């Protein structure tokens, strides 16, 4: 079971990865987008940490909601509504539970995936964050339904997220700003898929104790 402290730790780790990789994400985005993903996500994560410390939410659901609203207001690019939706959907799925189990978490992540697919209308293969999210969420859901625990499968989750992130390189973008580039988007790793990899890696490090 994961309490509010675990989710705070998840956000702190995610924020740390976004800060460390700010330039890297921005460089990836400059190649095929508008070159602001790293700066935007870092600003968003810092705003989220600020709001967490000023409002001090008590439950996992409240934490996710606080982070979602902070990202909506501060990220600026398409990642604002997309990551905002992820955290808001997870917050709704958590409800007012004090502790979250593996099944709750898998359900919440599935709701988040449905949220971003509904918002951006992207499918696997479009060279977006969905290329990481969908296979990872399906893997998590399947394994947890089959009785494995999240700490047990954490390493596999991170490896899968990394593999799917790298698999966006040869794809041609069909959604977002990169789609305006057509074939010229081939050969670049998608920045949204990359920040999504950090998302799952952070979640696993916080929760799986990896």
């Amino acid at each position, binding site marked *: 079971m994961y309490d509010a402290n675990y989710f705070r730790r998840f956000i702190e780790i995610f924020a740390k990865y976004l800060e460390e990789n700010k330039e890297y994400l921005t460089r990836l985005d400059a190649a095929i987008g*508008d070159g*602001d993903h790293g700066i*935007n996500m870092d600003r968003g994560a810092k705003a989220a940490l600020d709001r967490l410390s000023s409002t001090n939410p008590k439950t996992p659901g409240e934490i996710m909601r606080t982070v979602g*609203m902070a990202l*909506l*207001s*501060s*990220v*600026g*690019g*398409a*990642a*604002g*509504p*997309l990551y*905002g*939706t992820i955290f*808001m959907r997870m917050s709704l799925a958590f409800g007012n539970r004090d502790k979250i189990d593996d099944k709750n978490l898998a359900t919440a992540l599935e709701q988040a995936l449905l*949220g971003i697919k*509904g*918002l*951006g209308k992207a499918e696997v293969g479009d060279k977006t964050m969905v290329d990481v999210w969908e296979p990872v969420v399906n893997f998590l859901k399947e394994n947890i339904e089959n009785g494995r625990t999240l700490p047990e499968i954490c390493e596999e989750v991170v490896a899968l997220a990394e593999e799917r992130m790298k698999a966006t390189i040869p794809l041609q973008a069909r959604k*977002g*700003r990169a789609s305006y580039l057509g074939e010229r988007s081939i050969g670049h790793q998608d920045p949204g898929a990359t920040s999504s990899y950090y998302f799952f890696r952070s979640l696993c490090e916080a929760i799986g104790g990896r």
Partner: protein
Amino acid sequence: MLSILILSHSPDIARGLKEMCLQMISGDVTIEAVGGTKEGNLGIDAELVLNKLQELMANSDGVVVLGDIGSTILAAKNALNMLGFPANVCIADAPLVEGAVVASVEASLGSPLQEVVKKAEEVKSLNKL
């Protein structure tokens, strides 16, 4: 009375387009514009979009939302999701500048929400030459 919500990645486009629309209208219609990030850079403040939309919903009979590229439409769709898909708000699938001008004029003539959206979307097939 209807209202029009203009969303742009650029604060200058949002401001300028609002000005253009205000010049075109004669009747009772509220025009609001949101553009750029909190810091005034290129981007969109999705929380401000949500708040502005709620404000317009409370003070008018319906809202037509128009956006430019990418994230403005995502911000609008996100706001609609969070508000539970209110019946009196529509995102017009139209080019921003021409769509907003046509929607403003149509709304100021007293047309109902769906008609305003339809007129704005018809702009897509408008020939300029």
